[in-house]
């Protein structure tokens, strides 16, 4: 049932808009989502979702698992809002899994089905750099992961 709700929502996002009169209006600029701050983060998860119309702009957040244990989560926000989570992880090559959740119109927090979850992958955590793992969802709800690395911001 929950999966059906997500499917319906994603389908609406993907397929909306054939009738001119019902074309969705551009979404208003999302309000800033506060970032959970940690001291000297060396890892940042960024979640970006493409949303076709306002009806599909429901609320989501993402949990971050490192080596099988929950290490943090993003703040809760609308799908159209970019969400961040900054963490300080142990140095080394860490298996990281992001788990995406949504709040249906009726009911409780629900994990996205397996087909819409990104795969687990290793992220090398190094001294002096921030590893950025970006999770992107296309309008059909398909996830993709990209990793980048930047020098740590000076103190």
């Amino acid at each position: 049932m929950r999966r059906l709700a997500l499917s319906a929502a994603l389908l609406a996002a993907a397929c909306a808009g054939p009738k001119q009169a019902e074309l969705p209006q551009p979404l208003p600029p999302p309000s800033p989502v506060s970032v959970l701050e940690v001291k000297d983060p060396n890892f940042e998860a960024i979640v970006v979702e493409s949303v076709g119309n306002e009806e599909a702009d429901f609320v989501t957040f993402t949990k971050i698992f490192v080596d099988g244990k929950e290490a943090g989560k993003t703040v809760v926000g609308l799908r159209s809002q970019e969400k961040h989570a900054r963490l300080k992880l142990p140095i080394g090559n860490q298996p990281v899994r992001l788990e995406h959740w949504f709040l249906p119109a009726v009911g409780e927090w629900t994990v996205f089905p397996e087909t819409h979850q990104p795969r687990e992958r290793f992220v090398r955590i190094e001294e002096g750099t921030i590893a950025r793992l970006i999770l992107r969802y296309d309008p059909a709800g398909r996830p993709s992961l990209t990793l980048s690395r930047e020098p740590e911001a000076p103190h």
Partner: protein
Amino acid sequence: MLKPGGTAKGTIGNPKDQDWYRLDSMADGVVTAKLGGIKDVDFVISFFDKDRRELKRVDETTVGGDEQLLDLGVAGAYYLVVSNKNEKANNPTQVYELVTKLDASAGREREPNDTALTAQAVEAGGLAKGHYWPAKQLLSEDPEVAEEDWYSIEVSKTGLFLLNIDVSEVPKVDAILEVYDTNGYKLKELDAGGIGEGESLRSFGVRGPGKFQLRLRSKYKTTGNPDVTYDLLTELLPYQGATEFEPNDQRTDATPLELDSISGTIAPAGDQDWYKVTIASETRSLLRGELSGLSGMDLTLSLRDSLGNEISFIDNMGKEQPEILTGWGLTGGEHFLVVTEKSGKKVDSRQSYTLARKLITFQPGLEWEPNNSSATVQSLKFGESVDGYFAPKGDEDWYEFNLYQNGVVVLELTGVINAAPSLTLFDQEFKELASSAAPKPGDPVSLERELDRGTYVVRLKPADPAQNNVRDKYSLRVRAK
């Protein structure tokens, strides 16, 4: 007074002479009137109704030439009028002969049917024999306009139907057939055949109830043929989803592909046939498409997303050979398969291709296309294997696995006929670690390497992009030594 089927004799006493003949026909029929030419006279024959409105005029020859009016639909009183166009004609004594013939009207063209308004009703499933004659429509506003024959077909039942139309060949004439709806919008124009060749429209989709009009004409204004009839054969079949539903030349008109297979034709030249594949559930499925070959043609198959954007183009094989889309991953929604002829110039409405589709529920261990790049890499569990295809041409397949403990890892790829693949291993930063290639097509390839824990990516790629195999799967296995 001239009895239908009778002959009248007369003379042209002066250049302005007009001879009127009344023609009475009690029953429906089709009259032919032939006038033998005489010296000095440039004949014109006209056909009038009982109110003396001119319905048809013919003037195809010059001084001394014969004239003929063909396929005149009659039921009641009409007039045939013989006149002369040569102002200097001076042959008051020579007798001309106006020979008429009356035939049953069933299965015959009934002039005048030169406009949409005067279109002749024909029954679907029936035959109409007519002539591309005269070559010009002298009664139209522009007398240089070529002759046209209009027919209308009524679909009385509710539902979807397929209309097939065949127009036989007529020497010297290059026919054009057009289909219009009741609003006068042209739905289809067919000009596939050349001079002396017929036209054929296959599987043209119509919705009933409705009325459709056919316009048949010679491509070249001055060309007609009074001696040979064309046969216009129509057929209306209930649509059952087993054939394409023309027009299906664009995404919005795509024929639903709901059965396991569907047949279609490439006509006219440049024809694109769109088929819609709808996956109702969110289940992950693999779509396989098989397109049969057609004699004399090189067909291609393309997979499009819900907006019509091409996501895979299949042109593995050559002329007269089948094309196969192997296992493309889809998750719900609408997708399209598009069949085209490669050159865009070939046409043949008499032979049909078959497009078969198969939806297989995805299971771990099967390849999930697209996995052609690092951005669309497919995950593979360590210790397990995956089966996939090197297809279409230029295909490369990327897989990613996680290694949770340091160790020696073995990658094994089975051999596939017609492909000599290379196997390349990258680390999680996409730095190349090792590579190995099959010595020749059909040979297996393997690679062994000591690795730290981490994420690794494997790229499989035939040595030559042209190498492909849609029949045999490869199997890739990643295991610890």
